[in-house]
């Protein structure tokens, strides 16, 4: 039987951090992290074997966080047309100070669809394409395409946000 305490100690920080990146709200992050570990506790108590605890925990975290986001707000649907072609060459965040940069990026991430946001966060966390596919539930063959398209979309949103900020 797996030891819950060991897994809790080992992965709490990663789950909290991942949840925080997706939700961007401390209270919600704490709640979701707690829920994830309660689920793990119940699984272990029911003698269910979890082969890859990190992947399992990430998957549960992502699902719970996305559900939470979907319940909480509506997302701005960005038109994926000509806009994606313009301005993609600018390096937007370079010359801005840290706190402004942080705000701009968080706002931009919030404008992505939940799956897109999750994929970028998992990618930034250093997960491989295979791990990203397993955790987010998207097809392995489309991970690269989704990352690439989301980065392009992010560039456009960042550029628009920056323009709004300095207009």
């Amino acid at each position, binding site marked *: 039987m797996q030891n819950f305490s060991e897994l*809790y100690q080992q992965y709490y920080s990663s789950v909290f*951090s991942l949840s925080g990146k997706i939700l961007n709200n401390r209270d919600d992050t704490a709640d979701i992290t*707690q829920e994830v570990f309660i689920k793990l506790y119940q699984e272990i108590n029911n003698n269910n074997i979890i082969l890859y605890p990190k992947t399992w925990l990430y998957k549960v975290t992502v699902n719970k966080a996305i559900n939470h986001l979907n319940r909480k707000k509506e997302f701005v649907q960005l038109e994926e047309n000509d806009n994606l072609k313009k301005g993609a060459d600018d*390096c937007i965040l370079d010359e801005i100070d*840290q706190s402004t940069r942080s705000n701009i990026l968080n706002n931009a991430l919030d404008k992505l669809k939940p799956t897109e946001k999750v994929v*970028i966060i998992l990618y*930034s966390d250093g997960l491989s394409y295979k791990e990203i596919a397993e955790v987010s539930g998207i097809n392995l063959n489309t991970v690269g395409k989704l990352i690439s398209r989301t980065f392009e979309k992010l*560039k456009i949103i960042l550029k628009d946000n920056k323009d709004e900020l300095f207009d």
Partner: protein
Amino acid sequence: MNCLTNEELQLFIDDELQQSKKEEFNLHLQECKSCAQRLKEQKEFIALIRSQINTDHPAVDMVPPFLGTEIKPVKRRKINVWLKVAAIILPLIVFYSIYSNREETTENKQFTITAEDIMQYEAYNTNIDANTACQQGMVITTVIDQEKEKVETTIN
């Protein structure tokens, strides 16, 4: 070969290409300044986003104690069959008793004679002498009781 698409560039950066494709792209990148520049900028952008996301949400230093075990799931109490039966029958009894009481009240009300009833009766009964009431200071009249019999009633 043609310039790399954004997706191919991303796959190249993440080392997710087949070896043959990788070599082909490497050769192209040595020759194409535009693609080489795009590659450089994309790598910088990714590094910036990565560092920003990870700086904003660093891993926690201290792991708090797990409190989940203190939250006990609410146990479902088994409801006795007789309680279920009672839950069905009791409202029926209450409903019946209220309903029958109401009917009784209506019947009683029918035979509670008021001055208004008498006036109405008199208005349709020509055999009643209208002066009787004035002479004797009361009203003498007949009504039909529950057994459909006529009874005499007086109201002072």
